[in-house]
């Protein structure tokens, strides 16, 4: 690669990065409020892609029309998983390990439910139809895809930020994130707030899934993009919502640069290595002290 290609590669990467960011926000929100590493979360991306397929191909909706229904449907699924699958464990004061495994199990359930529908069907559906030609800014080619994904992520992230800071429900959510015990003493309905957090993260995951289905493919394998978004959440400081956005964009750019310039086949290995390096580096900093086992 010549240095001149760098801006081009960065722009390409940002589109994917916006999708990572949406998923990473969900990871962080769930961790912040429930203290939970959720392995079911990547599967909401998968669900979003499948719902997106239904909306775009079966119901012939336009992409922008599909966003809200797909997001809401995925959010509902997320709330159901939380209330049916996780709430009883929380109520019994179940261990962290039991919670994590329950999310793993729900991930299996969601994948298998979708597989019932499409056993050998469209596992890789490119939904994109006649894209508009790209435009150029300072000699860098910009696709409308990239603009759209970035705009979607920006709008949703901004809306979430406003919601968390300005509304009562949003403040309640942050309060629960600080300390659910104190929050409940202050009269906040903790369970309802957790359901809300699950719903929001499901919505964001669903929209991300719709975009993944539109840009790449829809189907049960889409969850792997969600798993990689875990790296984005880690880079941004797990549990930190604005950090997740930055982490997502960085990961998108990094991922794309590694794939084009280092090695496409080692790409995933390098991204996973990055998670480890970031975790260890953050642990060394002052902010990261709480990550460490006290030596």
């Amino acid at each position, binding site marked *: 690669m010549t240095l001149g290609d760098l801006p081009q590669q960065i722009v390409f990467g940002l589109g994917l990065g916006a999708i990572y960011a949406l998923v990473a926000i969900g990871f962080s929100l769930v961790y912040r409020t429930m203290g939970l*590493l959720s392995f079911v979360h990547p599967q909401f991306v998968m669900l979003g892609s499948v719902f997106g397929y239904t909306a775009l191909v079966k119901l012939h909706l336009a992409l922008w029309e599909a966003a809200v229904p797909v997001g809401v449907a995925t959010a509902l699924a997320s709330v159901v998983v939380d209330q049916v699958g996780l709430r009883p464990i929380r109520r019994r004061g179940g261990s962290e390990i039991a919670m*994590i495994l329950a999310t793993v199990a*729900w991930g299996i359930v969601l994948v*298998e439910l979708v597989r019932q529908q499409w056993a050998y069907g469209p596992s890789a559906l490119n939904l994109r139809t006649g894209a508009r030609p790209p435009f150029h800014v300072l000699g860098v080619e910009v696709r409308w895809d990239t603009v759209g994904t970035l705009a979607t992520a920006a709008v949703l992230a901004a809306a979430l930020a406003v919601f968390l800071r300005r509304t009562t429900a949003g403040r309640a959510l942050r309060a629960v994130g600080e300390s659910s015990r104190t929050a409940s003493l202050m009269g906040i309905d903790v369970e309802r707030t957790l359901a809300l957090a699950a719903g929001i993260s499901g919505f964001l995951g669903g929209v991300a899934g719709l975009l993944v289905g539109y840009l790449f493919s829809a189907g049960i394998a889409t969850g792997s993009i969600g798993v990689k978004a875990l790296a984005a959440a880690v880079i941004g400081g797990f549990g930190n919502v604005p950090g997740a956005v930055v982490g997502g964009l960085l990961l998108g750019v990094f991922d794309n640069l590694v794939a084009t310039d280092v090695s496409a086949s080692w790409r995933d*290995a390098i991204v996973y290595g990055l998670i480890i390096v970031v975790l260890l580096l953050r642990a060394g900093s002052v902010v990261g002290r709480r990550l460490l086992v006290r030596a």
Partner: protein
Amino acid sequence: MSARELPAARAALRRRPDGRRALTWSLTIATIVVLYALAPLYDGTFFLSFLVDVIILGTAALGLQHQVGDAGVLNLGQAAFFGLGAFGGVWVLQHWHWTTLGAFAAAIVVALAGAVAMAPLLRLRGVYFAMASFAFGAMMFEVFGQAVGFTGGENGLYLIPPPKLLGHQLLGNRDSYLFVLTVALVCYGLLARVARSGYGLSLHAVRQSENGARAAGVNVARMRFFALALGVVPPAVAGVMYAQVHGIVQASIFDQNQSVSLITMVIVGGVASRWGAFAGALLAQYVAVYLQSIAGYRFLLYGALIALLMIVLPGGIASVGRVVVGAAAARRSRA
């Protein structure tokens, strides 16, 4: 814990009512006899081959049980060590024509090297270690896929010689069964013995109270590393057994689904129970193999079953007895 207090503490841990101790021993011996008796009874049947796979997976899960259950190290990348053991063992089998015991040794060395590579992650706490270990496993899977010279890449390695012990070739599923059963029992016995050693007592103390243990002079960081290292030995051995029994091994077996599946076995079986690892492996393998009749729905059922189990029986299958006895006792005291 000082050296002088150790024998006393050890004795205290062993001191059980004599009746219970005799019962435990007779149950253990009876179980072992029954397990060995299955070999001639089911010689040549599909059921015995099924049990071979259950035992291999259970052995891999056994190491993880030690890490998670005994030391609280939530390792979500255990498949990497299963794979390192398999590929390390097969390398010396195929290139240097070693026999099974040599392959075990090589597998253990390679897996321990992996544990050393993973050691820096142990500085991370709880869920952060879980995440980092998940990334470690995912990374190792990618490495297995790319390191064609070592793993055969996507094609995998084949024509792996069957197990050979002390000059005897072990062929057929009865021999395979006796072989994996014996190795699994040895691993089980060693881990059970270790749990009662000074090291096991220190781990016990760390679980009770990390700060308390530290105040008593336990080096917590070192304990966690020992647990990680000891816990990669059974999966490494299981990797060799898998490769030799099946004669073929592919990198795709050691992906993150396998890691997740191993931790599932441990927790479903009961995280605090060594035999729970095998109970979990039995359930998982039963669903995968015997529920073919409901083909598409079996994993759906499995997932739903785990989700339900985490709600109604967080202690896993191994806690069934305790829960039932507890419920009966509660009813009796109420009456």
